[in-house]
């Protein structure tokens, strides 16, 4: 799975996710990536793209939950990402996600051993990584 989240200078957030799904999946299987609120979500507050065990992400509605805990619980972006990874995945569910906020923050989280990721911000911050 690949994904990208962006907030532009106008504070507009957008998210996109694309995937081939699971190796050896049944024909006709649909995962989290195209499901609004599961693998992909964006609103005025933030944008989120997920990757990992599709069925676990679907059950946890991970992407929407990041926005929801920011909106209803008042959490910051990284706090929201951490909360969702820790609290919203089933036991053993493995996933990762990336997020940006309308304030120009970036955040990511995962409970797998690694996630291919990169982020950059207008202040010059730039990072590419795989492991924790």
């Amino acid at each position: 799975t690949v994904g990208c989240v962006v907030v532009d200078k106008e504070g507009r957030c957008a998210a996109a996710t694309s995937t081939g799904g699971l190796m050896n999946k049944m024909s006709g299987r649909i995962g989290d990536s195209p499901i609004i609120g599961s693998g992909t979500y964006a609103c005025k507050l933030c944008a989120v793209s997920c990757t990992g065990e599709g069925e676990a992400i679907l059950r946890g509605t991970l992407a929407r939950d990041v926005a929801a805990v920011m909106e209803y619980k008042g959490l910051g972006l990284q706090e929201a990402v951490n909360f969702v990874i820790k609290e919203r995945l089933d036991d053993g569910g493995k996933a990762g996600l990336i997020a940006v906020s309308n304030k120009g923050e970036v955040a990511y989280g995962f409970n797998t051993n690694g996630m291919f990721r990169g982020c950059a911000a207008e202040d010059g911050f730039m990072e590419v990584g795989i492991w924790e």
Partner: protein
Amino acid sequence: MGRWAIALHGGAGVDPNLPLQRQEEAKQLLTRCLNLAISALRSNHSAIDVVELVVRELETDPLFNSGRGSALSEKGTVEMEASIMDGPKRRYGAVSGLTTVKNPVSLARLVMEKSPHSYLAFSGAEEFARQQGVELMENEYFITQDNVGMLKLAKEANAILFDYRIPTTGLECCAAEADNPLMMNGLPINVYAPE
């Protein structure tokens, strides 16, 4: 004026023994995509344009599991899916079951912008793609030799792999790691490759 920011991913769940060369290739691709996005944002492109631009680039490179390089179904075919969402306007487009569309994310955007719907799948999505004139490829274009090998291993292991791929180092890898106590879906953790 606010501050722009971008994050991107190429999948979670990475073989801890992923060769350094593969790690470097992944980092180079991620860096190239970041630079593409930075340049677009500095040129005042909108967030929705930039996410599509970046995901198209990732789909076109066979390194990660999307577009060319997608994981294979049990039939050895590629069935791709993608989505895109524009936050402020609350618009959404998604596609599933694509077998010929070179860049699924762009078709998802067309669903969002040019159809009265949010989500098209399988034959309907393919028909919409033809109507819209997007670039189409034979299914073979999306299939890499690495993934053919991974599917073979997955079938031999009788496993559906949750967004992870078995590296092409072969079954001897699985045997070599048989003593590893960390398991996922019935297989040692380090037989899994990204996505």
